[in-house]
Structure formats: structure tokens, C-alpha cells
């Protein structure tokens, strides 16, 4: 029921996004017909291309066409390739998902472990080292870190390929780079939240039962700390999809992010519009999944939901 209700409320959101995306993309400076025709084209040539692309139709007609494209792939084709946008997106999406999910998963694992280490020995050497690394991880721009990794691991050490996406090895560096930020964030989050719950009564009960400190932390305290981490992970994943633009450009990965950058620079309206709509759809789904996970981890939220 809850899922259905949430899905129901997502539809108006998506509709609003579709309208905004359509209007905003239309406001991007630069006329697609003019960009396609090149700087030396005459007005008549530009006009003829505009007509071919259907850009001379009224705004409402074009919006209707855009909505139709959501279920009819033949109504939504790229200005540049003339292929259905859904085909273009589906070819690129796996690469984006591999990097985003891989990066988030790695970040979550590394961050949680680092957080636990910090919480077990606060103020120790490991805590200090992790804090410094965390700060660096949060502050370093992905772009710069990416180039640095290419320089070190590809050019100097020759361990990994510099750019491309043809083998699994090509994904190692991008996933490592994109994992830094969530890893740093989760380690702080888990550490703080663990430290907070360390003094709670229910842990004393666990300790009184004779469990070792490690078991207490891993099986009792961590579950509560993860609640916060899960809701942050949802937002982080959304951010990673957005951040894929930078990672994919640096590492030459053919993903949706790069498709979007290309589409913006060439004013390929349909690709921009449907790609953004797809990202919006993902955000809605991720929010939903995050909420469900939080409920599962924290029974209190379920009760609140029932009370409402």
C-alpha cells in the first residue's frame, strides 16, 4: 500500500519534471538547426533543417510529441543520429550504472569499515589517518583525482588502461575514483553515529550478555548507524548519476553522462530531454527504495507510517 501511495505521488512529480525539462531545454541558447547547419549556412538552409526537425511547430505540439515519445520510441529520435533516443540511452546506461553502483558499493564498504575502525579506537593512529584521508577524499575534485590516477596507474605504473570501456579493467580506475567521496562521507557518518550509540543502554545489555566488543559493534550498534548511512546513500547515488558526466569524460567511458554532454554541446534536444527525464525517474525510484530500506532497518518509522 505504502509503495503504491508513493508511486502515485511520484507521477505528478515526473510530469512536472517533464514540463520543466522540455521548457528549459528549449531555453538553452543556440538553435539546433543552426548548429547542425554550421556557421556558413544560409538562412534558407537553416530554416529547411528546422522544418525537418519539426522545430517550427508550436510549443504545445512539440510538448505533445515529447510526451508521446515516452511510450513510442519512433516519435523520439536524436537530432544528430536519427536513432530512437531510447536505443541511444539503453546502449549507454549499463556503463553508467556499472560505474555508479560500483563506486557507491565500494564507497559504502570501505567507508563503513573505516568508520568502524575509527569508532573502535577513537583518537588512535588509525582514526587520525582515516580522518586525514577522509578530508582529502571529500575535498578533492573528481576531475583532478581522475587525471592523477591516470598519470600514476596508467602512465607511470602501467597497471591499468588509461581510458575506454572495452574490458573490465577499464572500469577499475573510474570506480576507485568515484568511490572516494562516498567512502569518505560514510566513514565519517558511521564513525559519528557508532560513537553516539556506544553509550546506549541496549549495548550495555549486549555487553552484559558476555559478547565481545567487536560483536557488540558489528551486530548491535552498526544496524542503527546504517539507518543514517542508507538515507545518505540514496542521495549519494543520485549525485553519482549526475557526477557520471565528469567521470565518463575523464575516463572516456561511453555512458549516459557523456551522451548528455555531447547532446548539450550539439543542442540535440530530444537526447537531453529524455536523458534528464530518465535521471529524474531514477531519483524517484531511489528515494522510494531508500525509504523502504530505512523502514526495514528502523521499525519505528513503520509505526509512524501506520499512525498517519
Amino acid at each position: 500500500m505504502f509503495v503504491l501511495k508513493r508511486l502515485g505521488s511520484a507521477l505528478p512529480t515526473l510530469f512536472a519534471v517533464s514540463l520543466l525539462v522540455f521548457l528549459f531545454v528549449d531555453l538553452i541558447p543556440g538553435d539546433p538547426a543552426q548548429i547542425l547547419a554550421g556557421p556558413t549556412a544560409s538562412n534558407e538552409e537553416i530554416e529547411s533543417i528546422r522544418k525537418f526537425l519539426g522545430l517550427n511547430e508550436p510549443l504545445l505540439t512539440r510538448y505533445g510529441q515529447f510526451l508521446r515519445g515516452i511510450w513510442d520510441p519512433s516519435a523520439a529520435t536524436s537530432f544528430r543520429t536519427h536513432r530512437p533516443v531510447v536505443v541511444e540511452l539503453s546502449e549507454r546506461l549499463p556503463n553508467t550504472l556499472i560505474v555508479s553502483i560500483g563506486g557507491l558499493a565500494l564507497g559504502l564498504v570501505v567507508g563503513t569499515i573505516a568508520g568502524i575502525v575509527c569508532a573502535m579506537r577513537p583518537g588512535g593512529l588509525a582514526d587520525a589517518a582515516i580522518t586525514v584521508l577522509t578530508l582529502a577524499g571529500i575535498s578533492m575534485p573528481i576531475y583532478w583525482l581522475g587525471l592523477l590516477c591516470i598519470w600514476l596507474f596508467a602512465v607511470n605504473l602501467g597497471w591499468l588502461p588509461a581510458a575506454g570501456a572495452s574490458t573490465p579493467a577499464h572500469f577499475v580506475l573510474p570506480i576507485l575514483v568515484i568511490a572516494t567521496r562516498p567512502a569518505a562521507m560514510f566513514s565519517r557518518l558511521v564513525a559519528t553515529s557508532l560513537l553516539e550509540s556506544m553509550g546506549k543502554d541496549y549495548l550495555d545489555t549486549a555487553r552484559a550478555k558476555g559478547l565481545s566488543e567487536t560483536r557488540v559493534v558489528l551486530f548491535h550498534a552498526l544496524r542503527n548507524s546504517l539507518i543514517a548511512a542508507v538515507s545518505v546513500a540514496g542521495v549519494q547515488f543520485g549525485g553519482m548519476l549526475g557526477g557520471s558526466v565528469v567521470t565518463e569524460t575523464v575516463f572516456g567511458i561511453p555512458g549516459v553522462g557523456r551522451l548528455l554532454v555531447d547532446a548539450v554541446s550539439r543542442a540535440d534536444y530530444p537526447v537531453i530531454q529524455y536523458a534528464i527525464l530518465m535521471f529524474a525517474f531514477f531519483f524517484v525510484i531511489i528515494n522510494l527504495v531508500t525509504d523502504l530500506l530505512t523502514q526495514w532497518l528502523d521499525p519505528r518509522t513503520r509505526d509512524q507510517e501506520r499512525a498517519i
Partner: protein
Amino acid sequence: MRNLRRSCHVAALSAGVSIMALQVQAQPAGTLRIAVGADPATFDPAFNDLPVGNAVDLAVMEGLFRLDPQNNVQKNLATDYAFSPDGKVFTVKIRTGRKFSNGDPLNAEAVAASFNRMLDEKTGSIYRGLYASLGTIKAVGEDTVEFHLAEPNGHILMLLSNTAASIVNVKALQAMGAEYGRKPVGSGPYMVEKFIGGEGFRLVPNPSYSGDYPATLKAIDFTVVPEDGSRMALLETGSVDVVERVPPESMPAINALKDAKVINPPSMFSINMEMVLRGPLADPRVRKALNLAIDREGITKGILGGLGTPSVGMVGPGTQDELRKTFPPISFDPEGAKKLIAEAGYKPGQLTLSFTCPTGRYIKDSQVCQALAGSFENIGIKATPLVVDRGTWTKVVGMEPAQRSDNMGMVGRATAGMDYTLYRLFFTGVGANRTGYTNPRVDALLKEGRAATDPAKQKEIYGEIQNIVWSDQPFLFLWYQTQALGVANRVQGLAIQPNETLVFDKVTLK
């Protein structure tokens, strides 16, 4: 004696035959790996607008004519050609017995269908306007194609040798739809084996090719890497053999490599500030002053890192060199410029100019824009550089002169044809004349030049046009770009046309 002569003939003939046989038998060998910066969306010649697409089209398809690495026109499918006495019909004889890579015959009918498809409004080709003068194309028998021209055009060979005029297999295209753009069916020495959008594509020899430029490589692998640093890293690690668009700052690092070097072939790409000829810039003295205020040597060496040469003519090298005219370099003379500004009636600080530049479209474009502002300030002009994104820049430089609120825009131009470049930029009132330039003498000459078919006459006409434009200075002439490619030492025989098209005719790998 006669017998001896005959046996000599026979021996010579058989030697010749065996040499030819050896050439024929030379098997394609090795894989050439190339990293390109731009992502080709389509190889369909009616829509492709990237040099990497041109390179693929040149390798995968054939045209009636083609350009050699120096941009000279050569026959390709054509064996002979002629104008009708009234100049209205252009007839081309083509080789017979040729086939597309899927086995379809490449005859006169296929050629006519290819051109008529490009010129059809429903196709929506971005080149329809450029080729409109070709009129209607008809096949006469198996081996003759007639162009019933919409207007006399003495530059038809130039048009037909462009890769946009490559012969596509219309039958296959209709069956494949938009996918044809990824795996075009042509009759060239190579064919596209695979295409992974955004990642790369691979060319392999076309077994049915029987022309003059047989494949020398077993495969040509292209990888698309937009980020300069990552692309250079691929050459540095030996993962690729050729990288295009080496940025100036990476040149020393690549030249220091043991196995690769930077090559700098000339480019026809000519970068200028195109002036809006109204207000202060309607005055030729102000235009001249601006041209004198620029230190072109300083810009090309200091900012472009040597990837440019100062402009000495309207169009870049390789733009029909037989018709191209060059002039002595414009001197760097700020004092002379100040005098001219004073003569035009402006006190120091009184004249205000703004100009629009793209960012990331040309090498160091925004930095040059700042430098130009400094040069103008230096001669007492208040200058405002407007560095904008690509979309805004396209919009601004594409506006009618009357709508513009700035005074100049940075634009790079590269077209193989003299007529195409000059007519569109300087004929009064044509849609692409964004400066508002008008000169009755130039108009008359441009018309005359377009219709002239005699090369000597063309040279005379275009010489005069270039003279007038160079002295009228509707542009702030800046530089001709220089190409920079990183090429591994094992690559032999790679040629690059001035329009940045890679030519694989003679490439071998050591």
C-alpha cells in the same frame, strides 16, 4: 633479332605482371589504433560534420572524385568528365563492374540515387544547400551520370570531391534506416565492422574492393576519448598509435617519448574576428587600426604554443591553393593604430568595443580573447571580451548584423572551396554574410567566378576578390591553425589533409 626483341618484350611484360601481382598480393597487415577527441554520431555523409567522420567516409565509401593529401582533386569512380557547351549539363563517365560491400552493383543509377537522396528535402541533409547547384542527377546507361545543373558552377569538381558527396547505397540505407549511419555500406577499401556509440569503432578491409587504394591494414581501431590528458596518456602508454588534437602543453611530453613524436601538418582552418560593419567598424580606418594593434606572432607563439601561423590571406592554406592568394604579413604597429583611431575622430578611451568568443571551440580561444582585449586597450579602445558557451556563441555569430549588440565574433572557417567560402561570406545580403559586407565589384566578381570553368580565368577573378577583401579588412585576420597529432614511430605513410581528414591509403606498420 626480332625473336630476341620479342622475348625481351615477353620478359619485360612478365616481369611487369609479376610486380603487379606482387602488389595485388600484398596482404593487409597490422592494426592501426587511433584515439580521437570527437565523438562521431554518424558516418552518413549527408549528416556527418566531423573530420573523423570524413576520414571514415573516405576509407569506407567512394566518390566520383576525391582529394589527395594536399587537397588536389583526383578521379576516383570517375574516368572522364565534361561540361555541355552551354555549361548546364555536367557529364561524368564512371568505372563499370564496381560493387558495394554487400554485393549490390555500383552503377550510374546507384550514383544518381545517392545524389538525389542528398538533395531531397525529405532527407534533411545538412549539405543540401551546399549541393543545390547540382540540380537533378540522371543515370544514362550503366556508366554515365548527368548533372542537370540548377545554375552554372565552375566549382563542381571541388564539390564532388568532398566526402559529403560520397556514394551511399540508397537501397541498403532504406532497409537499414538510421543504423546506416553507423555501418554504412560503401564501395571503399574498408568497411565498418563494429561501432560502439561513444566508445569506438573498427574498420576492416572490404574484400570486394577493386579500386586504386586497396586496404593496407588488417584493421583500424578508433577509440573516442574526449579528455585531452587521457587521450595523451593512451599514446604515452603505447595503447594507441595515433592521437589527434595534441594540446600545446602536451607537445614536449610527447616529443620526449622514445616511440612517438608530434607531427604538425598544415590546416586550412582560418580563425578570424568577423566584424559587424556598422557603427565604429563601418569606418575602414578603425578596422585597419584594429588589425595593426594585434601582435600575431606573439599570439601564435605565446598563447597557441606554436599551433598556428599568422594570417596572410583571406582563406587558409589548402583551400584550392591554385586560386589562393597570399599577402605580406600585417605589421604589429600600435602607434600607427593609435594615429588611425585619432584620424577616425576618437580620443583615447572614447571608443568602446565588445566582442564574442567561444570557449573550448578553438585552441586557446578564450585566452586569445583576453589578449585581444589587452591589445585594444593598448591603443586606447575600451574593449569588453564576451567569452560565452558554445550554444550562445553559435547564436550570436549566426545573427543578422542588425540584431547584433556586440562588434565582432571569433569564427573559424574551413571549406575546401574558394567559391563556397568567399561567396557565402562576402556576397551582398546572402544569409551567411554576417558582417553585412557589401561591395558591388566583389558581387559581380563572385558571380562571374562561380560560372567560370576556365582555371586561368578563375585564378584572375579570385585573385582580384581576395585583393579587395584583404584591403577592405572586414575581418580582424588572426591565424591559420596548425594541426598537431601524436604518431608512434611504427606508423608509416599516414597522411593528413588540410581539412584534418586522416588518409589511410598508404599506411603500413613497422
